[in-house]
């Protein structure tokens, strides 16, 4: 145990003495989140919307007021019939139309369910995406509050239609996406680099010749990054809540536990990379192309998986971040409990064990 | 050795890094066609001085001219007139012998005809015609070093700087390497060399020994051995460098 603590101490010396990496380590998540946050708040100010209210009752008025009271939306026009939808989009000013169905309040009371249709101009998919997520968030917030007041669970269903790009579905993808990306980056790239650095410097030779066990070396290398990545995950969640107004509906301990699981997964990938690589540069390249790009492109972070060709969808299913993003979205946005994400969690656990076993098997007790 | 034309003139060279004086008033001349040994313990300031003489670093003060050019203002001209080779940096391992030759000759602006001529000559000289399309990394270390030296002087520079060129090379190849050095010196190229092998120091025409940033001794090997009343250069070096702590 003393050996192991000595090893850990050394790892922390390395990390804290490397100022540049340290700045990247902690600066990057903050910068990324703020960057996304900034872009989003900028674009989604004073978006012109139109409303087609078929029921004109108390609830629909309240929702309308709530949406317009936020600084994000301005009412451009109250519509009176469905025929106007096409032409108003063509005019180009209005980016979103809200349609309340008939007898909204009544249906809500009677069946506990009522529908709002959100139609957006999705020629710019990202903006459309953002607008929808903001609108949905506001409606969700309203419906939650409604539920607190009454004892019958009531659900306002938003139905989204994207004009001109109807398949776009991702909602609030950014925070989970960035989280997946950054945890992947820091955990996997940093560990793989720190192990290959020892190989490059020749110190691995001495460690191997010492009585340290391979497991001790691996865990000692990984442990500091578990802690650092965890701090990063918390930072992102906190920033996401305040900058994005991202709700955390579900249990926070569950959210954090899932984060730790994903960190472990990314770390085991990092170890795997380092066991097959001899120098830092190669480790960096492998992590970049092997992990970072798929995380961005194939996890549903930016491009919806449903839109991909079948072959790519299969590949996407093999991307651990994909499942992580689903879990985080569910917990944060839907407030689901573990009972609903256990499948995805199990997939992540399976990935982690798989990578760990291979890397421990591959970690050589010798130089060849 | 013709002792008239000075190709390197150094007067009161000082190089400081902050408070640390790496080169403390170095003064020496090197003549055309001379083999000049530049010795000193690790950290004595050799590398700093060589970098200045190669035009890679600007001195803090002093008058320095290399190949007739000023070390402050004409570093680009200096670089055109020197060759450089060290134990660590020599040839590209993943290029073939001919590719390396072409590349280096190309850097110094040799014409295609010259390059062809010189590379044929080189390959013939080393009897490498069956290996000329092999990657450098497949050659033994001694061969690499000999080849690297020949390439370092392919543009016929006035001076060639050799930084520990023979480290780790077997004794016979080491001597073949020195044959090449002599050949270059006979052709009028001045050779400026550092080494940790003290027997090699004795092959030089003149030697300087640096201790703690200063030149403590400068003379022919014979005279130094006489002056310090010892049998060989190894003992001269130990006597001089002993004064300092490691």
């Amino acid at each position: 145990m003393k050996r192991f603590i000595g090893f850990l101490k050394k790892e922390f010396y390395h990390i804290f003495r490397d100022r540049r990496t340290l700045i990247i380590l902690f600066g990057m998540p903050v910068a990324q989140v703020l960057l996304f946050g900034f872009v989003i708040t900028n674009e989604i100010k004073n978006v012109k919307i139109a409303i087609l209210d078929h029921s004109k009752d108390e609830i629909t008025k309240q929702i309308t007021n709530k949406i317009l009271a936020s600084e994000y939306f301005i009412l451009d026009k109250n519509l009176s019939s469905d025929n106007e939808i096409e032409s108003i989009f063509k005019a180009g000013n209005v980016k979103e139309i809200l349609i309340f169905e008939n007898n909204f309040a009544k249906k809500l009371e009677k069946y506990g369910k009522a529908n709002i249709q959100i139609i957006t101009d999705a020629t710019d998919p990202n903006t459309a995406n953002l607008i929808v997520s903001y609108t949905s968030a506001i409606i969700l917030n309203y419906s939650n509050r409604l539920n607190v007041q009454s004892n019958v669970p009531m659900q306002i269903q938003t139905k989204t239609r994207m004009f001109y790009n109807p398949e776009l579905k991702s909602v609030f993808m950014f925070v989970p996406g960035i989280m997946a990306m950054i945890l992947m980056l820091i955990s996997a790239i940093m560990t793989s680099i720190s192990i290959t650095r020892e190989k490059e410097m020749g110190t691995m030779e001495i460690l191997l010749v010492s009585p340290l066990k391979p497991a001790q070396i691996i865990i000692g290398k990984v442990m500091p990054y578990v802690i650092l990545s965890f701090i990063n995950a918390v930072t992102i969640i906190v920033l996401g809540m305040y900058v994005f107004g991202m709700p955390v509906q579900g249990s926070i301990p569950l959210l954090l536990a899932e984060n730790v699981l994903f960190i472990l997964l990314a770390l085991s990938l990092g170890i795997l990379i380092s066991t097959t690589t001899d120098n830092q540069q190669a480790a960096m390249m492998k992590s970049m192309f092997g992990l970072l790009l798929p995380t961005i492109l194939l996890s549903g972070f930016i491009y919806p998986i449903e839109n991909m060709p079948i072959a790519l969808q299969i590949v996407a299913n093999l991307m651990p971040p994909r499942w992580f993003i689903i879990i985080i979205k569910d917990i944060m946005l839907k407030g689901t409990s573990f009972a609903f994400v256990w499948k995805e969690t199990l997939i992540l656990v399976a990935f982690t064990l798989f990578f760990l076993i291979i890397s421990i098997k591959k970690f050589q007790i010798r130089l060849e | 050795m013709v002792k008239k034309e000075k190709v390197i003139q150094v007067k009161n060279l000082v190089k400081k890094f902050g408070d640390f004086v790496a080169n403390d008033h170095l003064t020496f001349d090197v003549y055309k066609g001379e083999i000049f040994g530049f010795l000193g313990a690790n950290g004595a300031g050799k590398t700093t001085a060589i970098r200045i003489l190669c035009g890679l670093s600007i001195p803090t003060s002093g008058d320095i001219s290399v190949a007739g050019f000023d070390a402050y203002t004409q570093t680009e001209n200096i670089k055109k007139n020197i060759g450089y080779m060290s134990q660590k940096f020599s040839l590209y391992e993943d290029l073939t012998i001919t590719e390396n030759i072409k590349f280096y000759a190309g850097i110094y602006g040799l014409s295609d005809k010259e390059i062809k001529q010189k590379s044929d000559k080189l390959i013939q000289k080393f009897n490498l015609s069956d290996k000329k399309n092999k990657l450098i990394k497949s050659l033994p270390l001694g061969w690499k070093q000999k080849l690297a030296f020949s390439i370092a002087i392919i543009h016929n520079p006035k001076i060639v700087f050799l930084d520990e060129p023979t480290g780790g090379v077997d004794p016979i190849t080491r001597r073949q390497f020195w044959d090449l050095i002599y050949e270059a010196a006979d052709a009028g190229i001045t050779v400026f060399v550092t080494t940790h092998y003290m027997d090699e120091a004795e092959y030089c025409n003149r030697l300087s020994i640096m201790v703690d940033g200063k030149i403590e001794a400068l003379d022919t090997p014979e005279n130094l051995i006489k002056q310090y009343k010892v049998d060989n250069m190894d003992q001269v070096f130990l006597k001089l460098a002993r004064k300092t702590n490691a």
Partner: protein
Amino acid sequence: MISVQNIKKSYGDTLAVSNINFSVEQAELFGLIGPDGAGKTTIFRILTSLILPDEGKAILNGYDVVKDYKKIRQIIGYMPGRFSLYQDLSVEENLNFFATVFGTTIEENYDLIKDIYKQIEPFKKRRAGKLSGGMKQKLALSCALIHKPEILVLDEPTTGVDAVSRKEFWDMLQRLKEKGITILVSTPYMDEASLCDRVALIQNGQIMQIDTPDNIVKSFKHELIAVKTENMHKLLHDLRNFSDTHSAFLFGQNIHYTSINSKINNEELKHYLQKNNHKNIEINKIQANIEDCFMELMT
């Protein structure tokens, strides 16, 4: 006690070492002398259990390097070829780290490293990367010794180190030997052979000769003379063209010369040199050194 039997190792198609046999007694200072690429590092890596031999067997103090690698790793202290300590840790932190890794403390084994560590102790707060070559080497040796190893394996500890630091280093090894530690050391510097108890001369993956430095020198079968004239470069040339010449190599201020005849005819040689316009010809009979022997074995 170290015993190496018929070790062979290749990397892909290239044969790194073959037919390696030697043994080292306890508290013996044994040197592997040869140029880069001769196979020294390969042999040391096999002995330190870092790589597996293709063939053959090596036993260190009763432990097999393949089967008992865990034991081996506890009894050896190893200093790899390049400086392999943590450059971003201080002198003290490096030493502390290696002490804890081996389950010991600096204090516990201080007397073993005292002589060496004392010299770098004034700089113990300095980062290892900022040390001079000689100091780095002392730190690396201290780290290799911190767990009181029975066998010390040093791969080219003096390469690239200046003559003064080299001398000091060998003095340290002598003192460690007196404390009963078996030392295996490799070096490309032929002159360091005489500082070992016994040496193996190695070239192209083969051991050419194993013996005490004295015996190796005595076994040199030619008569050896040192020749010197005013123009050494020309002398070398002329000697090589001389019909009686067996070998002629530059050695510092002289050329070491052997003849194909069992006895060198000094007068004839002198005559030949005079004919070739050499002045101030000096010819002295000398004792061969390890480098002479090494080159003789190579040719």
